[in-house]
């Protein structure tokens, strides 16, 4: 019954993957660092400050925290 494990077998868990979830565009274009306060500020393409506080959801592909809200990447390390 059991299959012979080999490198071509796609693990069962991946068969449970949602086809893909679209990655929302980042809500900011650039990040600047304020040397005085050590805070960072998020700016849109026009250079205006983006408020990253709650109420915004940023979906990012990375493992880092791009906003006050967690990225919607389904890796538990991000929750």
């Amino acid at each position: 019954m059991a299959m012979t494990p080999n490198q071509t077998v796609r693990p069962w868990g991946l068969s449970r993957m949602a086809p893909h979830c679209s990655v929302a565009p980042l809500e900011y274009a650039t990040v600047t660092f304020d040397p005085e306060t050590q805070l960072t500020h998020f700016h849109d393409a026009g250079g205006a400050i983006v408020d990253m506080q709650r109420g915004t959801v940023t979906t990012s592909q990375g493992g880092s925290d791009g906003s006050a809200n967690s990225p919607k990447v389904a890796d538990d390390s991000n929750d």
Partner: protein
Amino acid sequence: MPPTPTTVLVVTSLIDETANTVIRVLIEREVRVVRVDPADIGTALTFSAHIGNGRDSWGGRLLTPSRDVSLEEIGATYYRRPSPWRSDAADEQVRQFVITEARHGLRGLLRTLPNCRYVNHPAATEGADFKVAQLQVAVRAGMKIPETLVTNDLDAARKFALEHEHIIYKSFRGVPPGAGCQVGAIWTQRISADDLNGSLSVTAHLFQKEIQKTADARVTVVGRKVFASRITAPDGALDWRRGDWRELIHEPIEVPEAIREALYTYLAHFGLEFGCFDFAIEESRAGEIWTFIECNPNGQWGWLPDCDAIAHAFADVLLEGWWP
């Protein structure tokens, strides 16, 4: 005499807005903040540290374009989410060398600072990151957990599925980024014995008895402070991360005293100052039943209604015992 600590070191990336929230509070408390992203090692981050010749702990300096700090001045480290290590070397061998040496030399130092509180210590975070460890520590701390099977054995998984009316599958870590910009997701989902097959054998899989929950709770513990929200999704989703986070309903919820004590025990076991706990809540005649689902030792909380109070709790824990 060692210098009096004056500084909180914040180890994280530039794009970490949650760290900004804590830094704002630290500025209010008039403590010096040094923000460092270890991946900047190079001209943007220079360090030197020495030990021996009469010294039994590391001394030295950390230099960024905006700060120059002595290691002994660092009273606390807020270890958040540094960028992945990087190297612009084209050659893979060189790249790996650069990264590995930096990890051991710089990261090793940042987790060995002599007079420093850590929130959380990265070693504690690493140890607490394994769901397999979490479940055992949770149940031993007195919390209810879902009956769980971890296996790569098809027969064991089938048997588990047949023994329970509903079981769920969830991945340990999610799906790594694939080619292009597609992001896959494995949401916590109900599965049946018929769904299973031999392709289970190539890796580890986690199955749990499904909890008939009516809500989730997110409990954020920082030091002794406990912040809890009942979270309900408009569609009653099994995995609330799946929907639009803006549509989630957060309500304050009281954490039962026994759970609160178990959370302190849990954190103490792993040496954590902070953890984000997820619970499933079932209604019963006797009241609410709380089931431990998992704890993220480096979890997110910036989206919670208690965000500001949590940031203050982080400052309290970071400054405890050395800053007025």
